[in-house]
């Protein structure tokens, strides 16, 4: 199906297996690529290893999705390049870790319920601190440079350095170990009776990250697709001016989206902290490479594209890291290059060029 047919939306259903396959590849590129990657990986390794790596990849994808979703919205809706996004990830990680250390009595109990009394405040605090910083940051740093990418890059990189140095001032310059709550350590063992994959040990925390990531993806999709605010966000991606002509204050919408995006970065950072169990002020910068790849890969401004992009990045990291560790570093960027050569607009573009 060509782009022209898609616009008319009345193309006849394709005939024949090959044509249907081509149509699937063009219409659902995110699912096609995901299945392709998982199938190729399955051919190259033992199924038990594959299950393990796939779950881990999904967990990493879920966390990267949290961090990237805010940035794809600020870029897609507001056309703002916020290179300080990584600093919000770091700040969330430190804020969450501080609460976990403070509530370490609850966190070290073996009961999940008591652990939750430490985990939920930690994640909530990360969310709030990053969100509040987002509020200040938008008013002070972003607001004067709307519409000017070069200035945005300059001031947000500057802002990023300031935030990271402030983290050093508050928490000190050293790496900080993060105690992972007791109930989230260890693994589930798949029953031995299961064929092929019996006996595989799945880390609990990764499963929880996948569940939480899916829940937030579901919530965001619902907001974007079903609520008035969501309709406004999608409308704003298309034409800021017409949103204002209808009587909505788009600046207020920008601010809300920026705060929500920053808060999600903080949440992702806190989850990443519990995952790696060690944090540094510059962790956000390291994650930004994945985040930027994900938003370009998925298509700017698309939550769905961001989710699939994050999962693809997570999976390729784990698969390649296992098969050929020396290539792990270039796998993420390689994936982006490959996808952009195939679809320069990204997997699910929102902005029609």
């Amino acid at each position: 199906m060509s782009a022209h047919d898609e616009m008319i939306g009345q193309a006849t259903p394709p005939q024949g297996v090959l044509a249907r396959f081509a149509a699937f590849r063009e219409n659902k590129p995110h699912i096609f690529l995901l299945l392709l990657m998982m199938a190729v990986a399955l051919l190259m390794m033992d199924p038990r290893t594959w299950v393990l790596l796939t779950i881990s990849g999904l967990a990493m994808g879920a966390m990267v999705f949290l961090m990237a979703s805010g940035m794809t919205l600020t870029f897609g809706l507001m056309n703002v390049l916020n290179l300080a996004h990584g600093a919000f990830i770091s700040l969330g990680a430190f804020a969450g870790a501080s609460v976990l250390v403070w509530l370490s009595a609850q966190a070290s109990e073996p009961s999940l319920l008591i652990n939750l009394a430490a985990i939920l405040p930690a994640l909530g605090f990360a969310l709030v601190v990053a969100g509040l910083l987002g509020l200040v940051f938008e008013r002070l740093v972003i607001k004067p440079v709307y519409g000017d990418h070069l200035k945005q890059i300059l001031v947000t990189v500057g802002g990023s350095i300031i935030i990271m140095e402030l983290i050093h001032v508050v928490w000190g310059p050293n790496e900080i170990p993060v105690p992972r709550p007791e109930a989230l350590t260890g693994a589930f063992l798949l029953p031995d009776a299961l064929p092929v994959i019996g006996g595989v040990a799945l880390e609990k925390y990764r499963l929880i990250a996948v569940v939480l990531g899916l829940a937030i993806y579901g919530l965001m999709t619902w907001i974007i697709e079903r609520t008035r605010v969501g309709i406004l966000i999608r409308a704003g991606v298309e034409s800021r001016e017409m949103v204002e002509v209808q009587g909505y204050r788009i600046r207020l919408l920008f601010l809300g989206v920026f705060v929500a995006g920053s808060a999600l970065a903080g949440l992702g950072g806190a989850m990443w902290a519990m995952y790696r169990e060690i944090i540094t002020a510059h962790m956000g910068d390291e994650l930004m490479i994945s985040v930027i790849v994900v938003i370009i890969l998925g298509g700017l401004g698309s939550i769905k594209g961001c989710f699939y992009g994050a999962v693809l990045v997570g999976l390729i990291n784990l698969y390649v890291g296992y098969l050929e560790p020396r290539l792990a570093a270039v796998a993420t960027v390689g994936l982006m290059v490959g996808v952009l050569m195939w679809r320069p607009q990204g997997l699910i573009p929102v902005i029609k060029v």
Partner: protein
Amino acid sequence: MAESILSLSGVRADIDQYHILHGVDLEVPAGELTVLLGRNGAGKSTTLRTIMGLTTVTQGKVRFRGEDITGQPTPRIARKGIAFVPENMGIFSLLTVRENMVLAAVDGPMDPARLDWVFDLFPPLKKFWNRAAGNLSGGQKQMLAIARAIIEPRELLLVDEPTKGLAPAIINDLAGAFEQLKQQQVTVLLVEQNFNFSRRLGQSAAVMNDGGVVWSGQMTELADNDDLQHELLGLGLGEHQ
């Protein structure tokens, strides 16, 4: 002439380094359909955009119901009851027809009776209610654009060249819709190049040239005077249309 709901006095506006409006004086009478005529580049569209606050006024005043709205932000002007249908229609093509209408109803859920009236005016909107607005034809997009402007009662509609590029049958449908709005005494300021359409609908008229209003009065006065048409709108425009 009825009391004017909108008045522009000595309005100057620039786009980048170009002076587009050089002191526009315009009165829009309440409860009437006013047509703004003029050649391409005369500043008609810029006048509408300036009223909406989309172009910055460098000098002069825009008053709406006696209140000075010069330089106010666009959303605030819109909330005072001014709806604007731009030349490119400005519909959100990635949103469905329903979602476009939901956003247009700024005061809350749409009134079902009023929505039925809109569907009566523009039946295709009901048919394609849950389709992406980008898939509509040009005429249907224009219907959606006007439907958005009237889904809630507004004090003033600014409509920029609704007939542009549309087939005669569809132009006729649109004219019917404007006739109904006129009967309800909705105030409309319509920018139009199609003189027949303007003559059929307009009660009062203003003609722009080179960034200013050069003539204003009753539409009948302009419609009945060929010499005046020639002078203001160029040779034989009336006959050609």
